[in-house]
């Protein structure tokens, strides 16, 4: 019990004092997840909107696939990326395994389906409401696409934040392709997973506190964006 209390105290001290080890891990985590979510957004928004607006062969299969991929287990994504990047794999020559780049690739695969699937839903609903008006003004699906994304922006921001929440909290994929190498690929989740067993309870708890705070902040931001936007823009 005293161990536990001491660990908590030490954890808070680390967080409050911007402990360099802790700060480095948090920094890398944010860097990996933000970049991954940024890329996933750049891919997911247009893909989701296109699936919502255009009719093409295999569209239904793609919609089902996107929805199914939303729940992709991180370890499976990790495994696939590992196989692709390992020395014997097709992209082995790039030497990316156990680098932050590998972690970003894995998280992009994890988050893109989430953003694309949510975007498809948002844009499809908007198009039902807007179609006659937009066609009347002279905009078919292709020309209306950007206007629809813009009008769905507040819901889409929450979709992106959901993606960020998933990326920053997952441990399976980054563990497999990153390897939790100190000063290189160690991020919050992998550090927590491994430091506990090694006995560095204070660091693990400190990271846990940061992760929790981040998750709460992301959810609060998502809620606030929707609420205030709804009030101001209708």
């Amino acid at each position, binding site marked *: 019990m005293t161990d536990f209390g001491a660990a908590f105290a030490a954890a808070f001290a680390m967080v409050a004092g911007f402990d360099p080890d802790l700060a480095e891990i948090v920094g890398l985590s944010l860097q990996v997840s933000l970049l991954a979510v940024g890329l996933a957004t750049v891919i997911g928004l247009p893909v989701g909107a296109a699936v919502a607006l255009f009719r093409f062969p295999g569209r239904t299969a793609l919609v089902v696939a996107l929805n199914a991929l939303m729940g992709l287990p991180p370890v499976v994504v990790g495994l696939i990326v590992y196989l692709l990047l390992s020395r014997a794999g097709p992209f082995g020559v790039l030497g990316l395994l156990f680098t932050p780049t590998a972690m970003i690739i894995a998280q992009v695969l994890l988050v893109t389906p989430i953003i694309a699937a949510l975007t498809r839903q948002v844009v499809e609903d908007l198009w039902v*409401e807007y179609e*006659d008006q937009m066609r009347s003004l002279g905009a078919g699906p292709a020309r209306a696409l950007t206007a629809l994304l813009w009008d769905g922006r507040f819901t889409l921001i929450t979709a992106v934040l959901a993606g960020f929440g998933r990326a920053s909290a997952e441990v399976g994929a980054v563990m497999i392709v990153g390897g939790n190498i100190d000063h290189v690929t160690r991020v919050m989740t992998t550090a927590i997973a491994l430091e506990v067993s090694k006995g560095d309870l204070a660091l693990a708890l400190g990271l846990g506190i940061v992760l929790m705070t981040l998750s709460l902040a992301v959810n609060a931001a998502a809620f606030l964006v929707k609420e205030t936007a709804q009030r101001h823009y209708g």
Partner: protein
Amino acid sequence: MMAPSPSILPLELRDVSFEAGGKRLVKDFSCTFAGGKRSIVLGPNGAGKSLLLRLCHGLIRPSAGEVIWHGAGGGIDPASRQAMVFQRPVMLRRSVAANVDYALSLRGLDRSRRTALVDEALARAGLSRLAASPARVLSVGEQQKLALARVWALKPEVLFLDEPTASLDPSATHGVEEIIAAIHAAGTRIIMTTHDLGQARRLADEVLFLHRGRLLERATAEAFFAQPKNDLAQAFIRGELLWWRRGRDNLAARPGAPSEEGDPPCTVH
């Protein structure tokens, strides 16, 4: 002011039918709309008024028959010379001015020309002070005026309006009718639906009476409101309740027999 000549009119519907869900909802519709007038399409709910406008405007394709813009061709796209105001207009999630601007940008006008047109349209619709407000938080009446300002800026040759005042109070209705009159005065052909007889009397040059997907009568407003030739139309403008059951009621209306209608026919002004 007016759309550049030559005109896309006349608009002809030739034996137009529209089917959906195995039902024929618009039946063998033939008529021609030439320039100038204000045509009001009258009829009860479900008569097919909205479908007719959507067919004319090209939002839906006829299952049979043809919709022909006789003046189009030779590089003129009829879609770019017409506009429509819906019963419940859709406003984009941006400012009032930006909504008008977006419509103009879709017609390919460059930014430098758009600004003046946006200001002009908003001023005419009495919305200048709301230019910077988010469009979706306007009242229903203001949104309908904005929808009119948006199409006005496009200076269409033909404007379709589908029950534009159906969800408005009398004062907002008055404002909208004034704008419609002004758009017409500036040279736009008006084709509009309503189930409001008073509005039809105020705005119509001619009336088309629709019932169950058929055009039953077409007459000048004067002739129609004096005495329609079609007996369903007669019943409709007398405002008889349950007027469409007239045929059956007549059978029951023997002296002494209780009338199915209950109330005597009342008149709508």
